[in-house]
């Protein structure tokens, strides 16, 4: 019990140190960019997510935490319409992007996916393409015409914190990079199509601590210009990078739901629900 208390105290301490930084970062947080309203999700007949309501302010970082299988990844995949590509996928509710329902009949999902980019758990650069080719692949895949290719490559790789390491070997194959570098390459690739929102599904779970810190640094830099929603199993990471946190939970064989959401400092420092308190202190999950 003592050790738990000490750990909690330590965490609080480190959080109060962070507070200044979080507050500063909130200065750029603006109006609501995305919003999920009463979102429920099914795979076939199985309901996996129940009535999620969540708002994402412009240029904020929101962390989605919770034990495995509680629907976090499924939830972010509904935010850029990747969810519907899984056979049997169904959805109720609304997802608003800049005030418009992205599931409205006349909306082209390709446009949505370009505005709302995604980075996955496992680094997934295209193995047959070079580093440069990977960065520009989104333009080819979406048929987007832009002529300033060199600028895009330099800009996005710089934003992703990879430029210095690869600028002399842009024509090398992506497979030659380390896992952490590949993940930053994938971030650059997502940025190249100019998204306003970036979804990240456990982007650091396959990486070593040093690479993780680099990605977190990248996330903080990116959040000056874009809105980030990140799924993470790493509590410290949620504290380090996010302005807001939502805690998901699912009882056995029941759909997942949001237990509690709010400012990250509140969720970790002063959670209202006992289950949140237990989870953020590592007592289950």
């Amino acid at each position, binding site marked *: 019990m003592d050790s738990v208390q000490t750990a909690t105290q330590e965490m609080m301490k480190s959080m109060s140190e962070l507070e200044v930084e979080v507050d500063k970062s909130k200065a750029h947080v603006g109006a609501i960019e995305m919003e999920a309203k009463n979102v429920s999700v099914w795979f076939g007949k199985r309901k996996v997510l129940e009535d999620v309501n969540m708002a994402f302010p412009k240029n904020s970082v929101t962390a989605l935490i919770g034990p495995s299988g509680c629907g976090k990844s499924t939830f972010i995949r509904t935010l*850029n319409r*990747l969810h519907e*590509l899984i*056979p049997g996928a169904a959805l109720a509710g609304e997802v608003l992007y800049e005030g418009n329902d992205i599931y409205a009949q006349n909306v082209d999902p*390709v*446009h949505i*996916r*370009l505005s709302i*980019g*995604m980075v*996955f758990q*496992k680094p*997934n*650069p*295209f*193995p*047959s*393409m070079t580093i440069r080719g990977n960065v520009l*692949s*989104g333009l*080819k*895949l*979406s*048929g*987007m015409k832009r002529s300033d290719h060199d600028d895009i490559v330099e800009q996005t790789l710089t934003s992703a914190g990879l430029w210095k390491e690869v600028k002399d070997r842009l024509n090398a194959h992506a*497979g030659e990079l380390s896992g952490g570098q590949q993940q930053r390459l*994938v971030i650059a*690739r*997502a940025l190249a*199509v100019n998204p306003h929102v970036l979804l990240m599904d456990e982007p650091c779970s396959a990486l070593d601590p040093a690479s993780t810190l680099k990605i977190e640094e990248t996330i903080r830099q990116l959040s000056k210009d874009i809105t980030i929603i990140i799924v993470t199993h790493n509590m410290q990471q949620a504290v380090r990078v996010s302005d807001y946190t939502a805690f998901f939970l699912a009882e056995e064989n029941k759909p997942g739901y949001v237990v509690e959401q709010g400012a990250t400092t509140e969720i970790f420092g002063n959670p209202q629900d006992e289950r949140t308190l237990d989870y953020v202190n590592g007592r289950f999950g």
Partner: protein
Amino acid sequence: MATDTPMRDLSGSKKAHRGDRIFNRTITGAAFTSLLVLAGITIFLGAQTIPVLQDQGLSFLTTTVWDTTGVPPEYGIAGMLYGSLLLAVIALVIAVPVSLFLAVFMVFMAPAKLSKILTNLIDLMAAIPSVIIGLWAFYVLVPPAEEWQQLLNHYLGWIPLFANDSGNFSGTPFMAGLVLAIMMIPIVTSITAEVLKRTPPELINAAESLGCSMWTMLRYVALPFGRGGIVGGIMLGLGRALGETIAVFFVLKIVFDINFFNILESGGGSVATLIVSKFGETNGEFEVQVLLAAGFFLFLGTLFVNALANLIVRRTERLRS
């Protein structure tokens, strides 16, 4: 820091376990047996080829005469070798696009149930004996296909490829190529589908998150990923087309002159079909040897195609890793 400790023998894991030892020897034996069979065929055919080349010289490969009664008799299979190649190319041109479309449809577009049914049907199609295909082609395919050829000729006849001066549309290289294509499609489709199915889902996810369309996903992700395997499948189909005998026998009129590119003109060549059509009427040991020598060069050609396929597959594999 130098060390004087002697190196140890680490090969024990392969030898010490009795079960593994027996298993390894059996497998090695089986592998060598297939090599032996291959070597046996090569040696046998090669031995038959030597006297033919001694007698006929290189003209056996470069001329188009087939004079069994002349003094001395003359044989040249240039038309047949070229014909085999031409038929294979026609078959490729027809079969590859059809197979690719079919495989893409099965893997990425068709509902799961339909995809399963198609997979089974196509595997079944691959198992139809070629003599059945030949008979079916002869009785069912040829009559309408002759009209298709006339249509092709009517509208595209100004291209030398589709010219036909004789008005005779039966037994054409196009017809034989079409039948070969029908035999290739199941092989190429089945392998291509298998390869496309292995496209890593995380790469498809990546493409989807970057706003791909079905076409760009195929072009930039799935096809580059599967290139090696797909080329291998095509080469396997090509091997079948080159060696196919009996189905072609039913639909191609064998002529010894080279029909270079008038694919809608009656008459063409095929080494395998030459052998089967002449074998029954051979007169004396030498004529049999001539046919076997023709077989030897067909065998070399097929071997060459397979080797080429291996090379291409391996090179693309290396590029990827």
